[in-house]
């Protein structure tokens, strides 16, 4: 009874800057999550949200939550690949699974257990809290007709996909968000990957490059990660833990639904009003990317025992899900 009287005042930091739609504000966003938790808990769990730079810089959330300096952080797991190479798999895998498959793996395919096993070493509890859905390949100043067109291409593309492109001769350029537009517009880079139609339009990327490649092979889904300090989590009574879990699940659904809706409008606007040429990558380019991706993932799995374990679990589930998806979603899409 005494426990039910306790009020918890927590802090959540975020890897994304103030005002960012989806990542900070809007339906199913981290600020929305904080609001939902406060209402559902009848004000017993209050979470104060800080966007990147407000309390700590963008990429510092992992250490801060791990040490218990703040209780929660919102980000993507692949930001921590420098500490935990396997973390990549809890955000997205190139040619991996779409959002449905990813959610199935995480919630009911053993993904969440693996994720939390690995994070427990760092004193963390993890769960999904959002999803952008399928992202886009990105913006190109010139059309890509064949694999040879990638050779010597300068592209802003962080992470694992960057390594795959580099194998095909792409020059990988790391640029902060704010410099993508001027660099692409002036041709410092020939191509850039960002998020999806709604977010990319905000950045004005369509003013800088007209070819918008649609096959988001490198990010077929993208999970927003909620991490919670383990000690803080254990201090919560059972009902508040259920509130947090349920609010995160609600945000996972709602944020994805929101993205699906606004991206549809944004892409139509880009194509009809801005003269954007939206098209898929040529089949032989996709085939080559797929081949190199498989080799790259295999070499990563070879290098690290934990990555091996997560990789195998992910791929096992993918095989299982693929056969079902082939006769359900895929079959429906072909109707």
């Amino acid at each position, binding site marked *: 009874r005494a426990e039910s009287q306790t009020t918890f005042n927590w802090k959540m930091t975020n890897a994304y800057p*103030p005002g*960012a739609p989806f990542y900070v504000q809007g339906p199913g966003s981290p600020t929305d999550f904080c609001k939902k938790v406060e209402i559902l808990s009848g004000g017993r769990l209050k979470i104060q949200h800080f966007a990147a*730079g407000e309390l700590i810089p963008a990429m510092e959330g992992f250490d801060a939550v791990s040490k218990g300096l703040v209780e929660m952080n919102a980000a993507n797991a692949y930001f921590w690949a420098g500490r935990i190479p396997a973390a990549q798999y809890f955000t997205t895998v190139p040619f991996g699974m779409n959002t449905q498959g990813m959610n199935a793996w995480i919630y009911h395919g053993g993904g969440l257990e693996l994720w939390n096993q690995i994070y427990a070493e760092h004193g963390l509890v993890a769960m999904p809290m959002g999803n952008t859905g399928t992202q886009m390949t990105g913006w190109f100043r010139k059309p890509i007709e064949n694999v040879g067109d990638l050779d010597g291409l300068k592209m802003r593309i962080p992470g694992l996909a960057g390594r795959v492109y580099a194998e095909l001769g792409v020059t990988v350029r790391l640029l902060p968000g704010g410099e993508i537009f*001027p660099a692409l517009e002036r041709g410092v880079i020939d191509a850039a990957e960002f998020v999806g139609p709604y977010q990319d339009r*905000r950045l004005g990327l369509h003013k800088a490059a007209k070819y918008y490649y649609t096959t988001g092979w490198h990010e077929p889904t993208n999970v927003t990660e909620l991490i919670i300090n383990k000690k803080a989590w254990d201090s919560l009574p059972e009902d508040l833990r259920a509130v947090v879990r349920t609010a995160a699940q609600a945000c996972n659904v709602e944020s994805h639904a929101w993205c699906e809706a606004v991206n549809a409008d944004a892409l139509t606007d880009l194509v009809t009003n801005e003269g954007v040429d939206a098209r898929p990558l040529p089949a032989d380019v996709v085939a080559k990317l797929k081949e190199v991706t498989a080799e790259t993932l295999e070499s990563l799995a070879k290098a690290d025992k934990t990555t091996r374990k997560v990789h195998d679990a992910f791929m096992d589930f993918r095989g299982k899900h693929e056969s079902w998806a082939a006769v359900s979603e895929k079959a429906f899409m072909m109707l």
Partner: protein
Amino acid sequence: MSGNEWLILALIGGFLTLMMIGVPVAISLAVSGFTVGFIGFGPMLFSLLPARLYGVVTNYTMLAIPLFVFMGVMLEKSRVAEDMLETIGRLMGPVNGGMGIAIVIVGVLMGASTGIVGATVVTVAMLTLPTLMRRGYAPSIASGTICASGTLGQIIPPSLVLILLAEIVGESVGTLFAAAFLPGLVLALVYVVFLLILGRWRPSWVPAIPAGERATSGGLGRDLLRTVLPPLLLMMAVLGSIIAGIAAPTEAASMGALGSALIALAARRMNATLLRETLHGTLTITAMVFFILLCAQPFALAFRGLGGDHLVHELFALLPGGEIGAVLFLMLLLFVLGFFLEWIEISYIALPMFLPVFHGYGTDMVWLATLVAMNLQMSFLTPPFGWALFFLKGVAPPGITTRHIYLGALPFVLLQMLAVMILFFVPEVATWLPKAIGW
């Protein structure tokens, strides 16, 4: 007033007191931040400090600071810059205020290649201040002109302020770049007109180059080619490498740094001593800028931890006057905050909080963001806590006192208010260009 409000006052008051008696600005910031922060919520909050410090020194855009400073120091130590300003000054001939106008032009050119106030102010000051003093300019007008010209880079694209604002208001960076271009030029023009008027009204403050010197130094055309062309080429190397797509805005600074070394080489002034002096100058100036930015972190952490942002929010809630009232109040608020806080803090604190209000009114976000950028730029110049003023003080020769710098900044703050007013009543200054070029 609540306990926290008293603590916020103590935070600001403590900082101002320490700073005013002559404790280094950076140390004053850190000491007041730590002391008030520890009283307010104990040691826990400052465990987050190392992460913030790491964020400052690993911020990609900060790369431009040492690179631009290197360019400026190299041009100064090799006396290439001195020759350039002398010649432009002579070109301005009998015009009183001509050298000042030359500085505004240099400020626009530098501003068009970087958005780093520290680097621009420091570079322009090193390029021009010794020359101006020798020419008999009033120290306050000289330092005011330099600070104001140096901050032009904040409004003239590319600019860090605009990039961050674009992110916050949800417009594209390109649109804001286009929107801020004309207001930036208007501001530069206002400065030029002011200097021309000053030249007629108080010629002794902004003297022209003596007629005797102009007469004896023939061959102006050749001198122009010899002294002005190389640095101009250098500005073009920076701007050109951005426009031609060779370098991103931040890394373009390296083209300037490399180019300045090549120019010193071409002028046969490059040697081991010059390189050693340039590295020394670049290091002390860059470190001075970072010293302040780093020590501002405990201060900012305490301000936020004590709910300084909420205090500001509550102020806003008491407001009459609809959309125009809200815009005016925002301008006033940013202006006042600008006395105490860094622009990044201001944009993080005030803007995201009040944007819903303006979204509600259907305010043109491009116009609002440009107004905010102009206003934030003003905060660099407002005594006692204007970053441009600190940076200038860091490199000013002993003859220039804080008093000169504060006094000199005042007319330019007034001129900026005039420019903000023009933009307020004629929004097209900001909104026309983005529409015209389709951005």
